[in-house]
């Protein structure tokens, strides 16, 4: 039969053949290429028992408004069966600005929770024992400041720093590449990252010090191969930086974790996760001579693709998210966030967020997909895709190595330009209907008809005012001299070579605000301005 007249290609533009067979993977070597789960090069997974031992962590990213409101949402999520917390901060917090800064206008509490000082962090985790949960915090440029606040809350709850666990994203390179929430220039920014590595290796040994993130790179428009390559090459850059800061590879690499997108192209995504594990194991062994097996095992979180959600016919997003989540599970994700159906319109309502969590629970307990490890291993198609992605990634590695590493590549605008190209190509494919999106350029509901209305979360505009008043009161009531002394000690550490974490912990204990701490370092290091590329 004649084939349909459409381009058979992945969402990243990779051509797909009609049929895959043994000839698609010439010289296939099970031991070298795959290995059993839990064995080098970990293509099939990092645990021999897969999800039979421990299911993936169902970790839903949440945060909005004031710390009180978000604290309530966390308690709801925990009682609904979530197994970890994940903090979404608002833009002022992410950019190291206090609520009363002019650039914070309209942004306080909007796309996450506002945390200005230790007082807010105490409220955020009120009634939640940090010794008993793991918390992931999506924070990058001010990661050391927010982490210091979390540590002081733990300290005051009586939790042992050596026992607590969680993750800070702390991935500044992808900020320069994709998400653009940077503050300082690349080199001092890397110093902050390695300060956290060093501090944690000594004092908070179970903490995941970085989540090297492809998620945002993909959301910005990268292809699957670009997401894979830029993320892992960022990982290499961090390992190199840690080594140059005097750390032994096996003393900090086991606490590095990764974060990938779960996009719509089902098989390409599964291959991407499998390739990621294989590449990382090989790179850590070949480039860095890692000896500890934990340094070779790539652990990752994944999140379904926000960018794939449509404002049109929003109920369709439930299906998209479920299928994306399935690809992450078949690819062996270690933890997962599923998006809510209403996120092309606003932050999710509690009902929509619960449905997203239920989607994961159905996958875990009803579908049987968690029973066998790497169930697609050996599929001619999936193995070929895994190989192709690994090869394409190696090409990007060579290009970036030739430029002198990722920081040099970023300074030349290389990954930024590659991603912008891919984003534009994708949009053109959508315009020309080479890429179909249900409800957007195909199966469109007639105007005014069939467009379901979904309830929308309204962020209380009063949240900003409450945070403003709270910050004002904090500045009045704390010991101003103690704050001043702590901030000047912080500047001194930053200007020299001492680790900045102890000075940050002191500043946090004195209730210095995030804006004050970040400003102190702005005075020392300056701010980064990017060359806008279109």
């Amino acid at each position, binding site marked *: 039969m004649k084939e349909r007249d459409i381009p058979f290609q992945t969402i990243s533009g990779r051509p797909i053949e009609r049929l895959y067979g043994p000839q698609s993977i010439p010289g296939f070597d099970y031991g070298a290429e795959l290995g059993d789960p839990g064995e080098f090069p970990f293509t099939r997974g990092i645990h021999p028992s897969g999800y039979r031992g421990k299911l993936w962590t169902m970790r839903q990213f949440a945060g909005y408004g004031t710390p009180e409101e978000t604290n309530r949402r966390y308690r709801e999520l925990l009682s609904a069966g979530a197994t970890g917390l994940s903090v979404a901060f608002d833009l002022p917090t992410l950019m190291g600005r206090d609520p009363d800064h002019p650039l914070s206008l*309209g*942004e306080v509490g909007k*796309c996450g929770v506002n945390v200005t000082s230790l007082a807010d962090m105490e409220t955020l985790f009120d009634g939640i024992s940090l010794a008993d949960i793991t918390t992931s915090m999506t924070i990058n440029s001010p990661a050391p400041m927010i982490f210091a606040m979390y540590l002081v809350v733990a300290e005051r709850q009586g939790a042992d720093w050596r026992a607590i666990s969680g993750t800070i994203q702390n991935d500044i390179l992808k900020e320069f590449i994709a998400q*653009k929430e940077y503050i300082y220039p690349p080199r001092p920014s890397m110093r902050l990252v390695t300060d956290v590595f060093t501090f944690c290796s000594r004092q908070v040994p179970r903490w995941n010090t970085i989540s090297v993130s492809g998620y945002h790179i993909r959301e910005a428009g990268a292809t699957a191969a670009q997401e894979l390559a830029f993320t892992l090459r960022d990982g290499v850059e961090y390992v190199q930086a840690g080594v140059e800061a005097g750390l032994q590879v096996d003393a900090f690499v086991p606490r590095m974790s990764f974060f990938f997108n779960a996009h719509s192209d089902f098989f390409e995504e599964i291959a991407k996760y499998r390739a990621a594990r294989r590449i990382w194991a090989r790179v850590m062994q070949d480039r860095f001579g890692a000896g500890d097996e934990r340094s070779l095992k790539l652990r990752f979180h994944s999140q379904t693709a926000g960018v794939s959600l449509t404002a049109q016919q929003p109920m369709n997003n439930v299906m998209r998210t479920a299928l994306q989540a399935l690809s992450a599970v078949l690819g062996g994700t270690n933890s997962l966030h599923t998006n809510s159906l209403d996120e092309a319109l606003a932050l999710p309502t509690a009902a929509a967020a619960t449905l997203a969590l239920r989607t994961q629970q159905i996958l875990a307990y009803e579908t049987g997909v968690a029973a066998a490890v790497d169930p697609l291993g050996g599929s001619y198609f999936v193995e070929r895709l895994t190989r192709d992605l690994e090869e394409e990634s190696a090409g990007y590695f060579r290009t970036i190595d030739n430029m002198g590493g990722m920081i040099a590549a970023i300074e030349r605008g290389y990954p930024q330009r590659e991603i912008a190209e891919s*984003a534009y190509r994708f949009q053109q494919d959508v315009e020309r209907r080479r890429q179909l999106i249900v409800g957007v350029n195909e199966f469109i509901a007639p105007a005014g008809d069939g467009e379901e209305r979904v309830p929308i979360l309204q962020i209380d505009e009063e949240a900003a005012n409450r945070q403003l008043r709270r910050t004002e009161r904090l500045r009045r009531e704390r010991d101003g001299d103690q704050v001043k002394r702590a901030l000047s000690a912080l500047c001194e550490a930053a200007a020299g070579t001492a680790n900045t974490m102890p000075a940050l912990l002191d500043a946090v204990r004195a209730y210095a605000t995030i804006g004050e701490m970040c400003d102190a370092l702005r005075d020392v290091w300056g701010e980064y301005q990017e060359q806008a590329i*279109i």
Partner: protein
Amino acid sequence: MSPSIIRVVIAKPGLDGHDRGAKVIARALRDAGMEVIYTGLRQTPEQIVAAALQEDADVIGLSILSGAHNSICPRLMELLREKGLDDVLVVLGGIIPDADLPGLKALGVSAVFRPGTSMQEIIDFIRRETAAKAGAPGR
């Protein structure tokens, strides 16, 4: 008189750095023959209005995904009026809930383009509206 080239300032106000949409649109408008100036990230309303004035813009395209539109748009429209730039066409793209649409229209935002809008639709809208403004008396 031959139609002059449409001049567009694409701006990214607020603290948000998600610039995929702004950059794709900037490029699409440029490929459609418009003169496009992209301000880069984190522009205050004051900076955006200054850019529009300096570039003699016909159109300002704002990209806001963070939910800050109800604070940023009123300030921007007020500044445009103060500078006598009320004839500049202002369009907005981003994550904008239904409930906010009437308020934005009332402020003078001519169109709100949400996720899934085609580039062609945006190009056509800008061409049509700028032509209508050019044909209107007083310009």
